[in-house]
């Protein structure tokens, strides 16, 4: 069964304190791994797609990396506006209807 596990569930950082979020996945043939940001009461906002091990993508203070078993979202020198829940999802070749399998998310709080 395809599944996604994110850790930690919650992370508190001081402004400027870099850290990483983890997404471990099990999937029968990875078509893609996706990172989203979700603010309270809003829909998820797409951040990155990673397709193969070794791939990296960056956007401002965020950098996503991928191995054959997990992905990391590195946050460099975070600011309070980076506070949100970060969701990881995978899509496998066996998933009907292009479905995404989501993890429960990591809630990041950055204080000034």
């Amino acid at each position: 069964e395809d599944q996604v596990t994110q850790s930690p569930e919650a992370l508190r950082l001081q402004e400027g304190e870099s850290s990483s979020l983890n997404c471990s996945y099990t999937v029968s043939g990875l078509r893609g791994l996706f990172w989203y940001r979700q603010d309270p009461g809003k829909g998820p906002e797409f951040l990155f797609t990673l397709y193969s091990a070794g791939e990296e993508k960056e956007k401002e203070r965020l950098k996503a990396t991928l191995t054959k078993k997990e992905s990391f979202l590195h946050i460099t020198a975070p600011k309070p506006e980076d506070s949100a829940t970060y969701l990881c999802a995978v899509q496998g070749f066996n998933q009907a209807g292009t479905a995404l399998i989501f993890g429960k998310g990591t809630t990041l709080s950055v204080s000034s």
Partner: protein
Amino acid sequence: SQTIHQWPATLVQPVGSPLSLECTVEGTSNPNLYWYRQAAGRGLQLLFYSVGIGQISSEVPQNLSASRPQDRQFILSSKKLLLSDSGFYLCAWSAESSYNEQFFGPGTRLTVL
């Protein structure tokens, strides 16, 4: 650019009442459309997806149904709501023939009392 709309934003309904949530997409043709539910403490769960008008697939057995009467319109319905139907409902789209990123709408918060 593409935009996705959902309404209403919030809804409070009594148990046993009907439900209709609407989602529309602008700026694209023949999108794949999806309904997800996000319950407290759980990840997003796919409820329905559609690859074209009148084509609906259900991922989980439930009290809900979906319809796609037009290319860029997706409707989530129920004849009689249950308490367990409460949650945050999200509509999403992806490009035709794309097995890649999905883009989400703003969501509808449904509370069943």
